[in-house]
């Protein structure tokens, strides 16, 4: 069974690879490369896999999931400029792809039953990350 906790954060970012020239960044990312940055209201679905516990009837206590996600992700991401204030986005471009991978990396040690991370950058664009096969 899959259960999902949805959370939100608001952050600014710029899609810009510091290893590339201004012109290359402009070609690759278009408006999203504007060096002053821009922001999104991100929505994150944290999905866990498991069977309901026979005593509690829960796959996992969603209060605990919320605490972990708050501590490991939201307190670090929310109302920040990702490129300047959140590791590793000083080195990797904060596309929704890389944000999903980073959220997985932050949560997996605390949520061993983590199944997938979905990141909505806008209503019309989202990514799913299922980890890498062991």
């Amino acid at each position, binding site marked *: 069974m899959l259960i999902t906790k949805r959370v939100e954060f608001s952050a600014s970012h710029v899609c810009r*690879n510091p290893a590339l020239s201004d012109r290359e960044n402009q070609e690759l990312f*278009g408006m999203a490369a504007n060096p002053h940055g821009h922001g999104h209201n991100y929505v994150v679905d944290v999905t866990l896999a498991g069977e309901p516990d026979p005593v509690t009837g829960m796959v996992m206590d969603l209060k605990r999931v919320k605490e972990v996600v708050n501590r490991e992700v939201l307190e670090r991401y929310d109302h920040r400029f990702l490129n300047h204030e959140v590791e590793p986005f000083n080195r990797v471009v904060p596309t929704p792809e890389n944000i999903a991978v980073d959220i997985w990396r932050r949560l997996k040690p605390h949520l061993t039953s983590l199944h997938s991370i979905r990141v909505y950058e806008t209503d019309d*664009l989202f990514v*799913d990350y299922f980890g890498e096969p062991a």
Partner: protein
Amino acid sequence: MIQVTRKYRFAASHRLTSPQLSESENMALYGKCHNPFGHGHNYELEVSVRGPVDERSGRAVDPVRLDRIVSEQVVEPFDQHDLNTEVEVFAHSVPTTENLGREVFARLTGAWRTAFPGEWPRLEKIRITETPRNFFEVSRTDGQA
């Protein structure tokens, strides 16, 4: 590996009628969807693509290229059109959203190599929402069916 999904919209009209059935059978099967003058929907199309994240761009798919192929293959030919009379495949098949989903998947698959010549990204699945209560998915594994 990452799956990226992008959402598109088109508005089109259709009429559900099967030439293999009689008028009364069509009416019994499709009900008001068989109304002779047709009717329309605001379709929403989700296109899901899978691939590794490119280190240079941080992306699994170039959204501009994805927008272009979906626009050329689906949105432009379908948006503000009548599916039965203006989309060739529906001269021979009923434009249910099941058949529409197969057609969308086939069109994207047919043009995929031109837009994305490399091994990645791959078209993983599409999902069409006909109304907020009806949606239909076609995946790579059943796209050939």
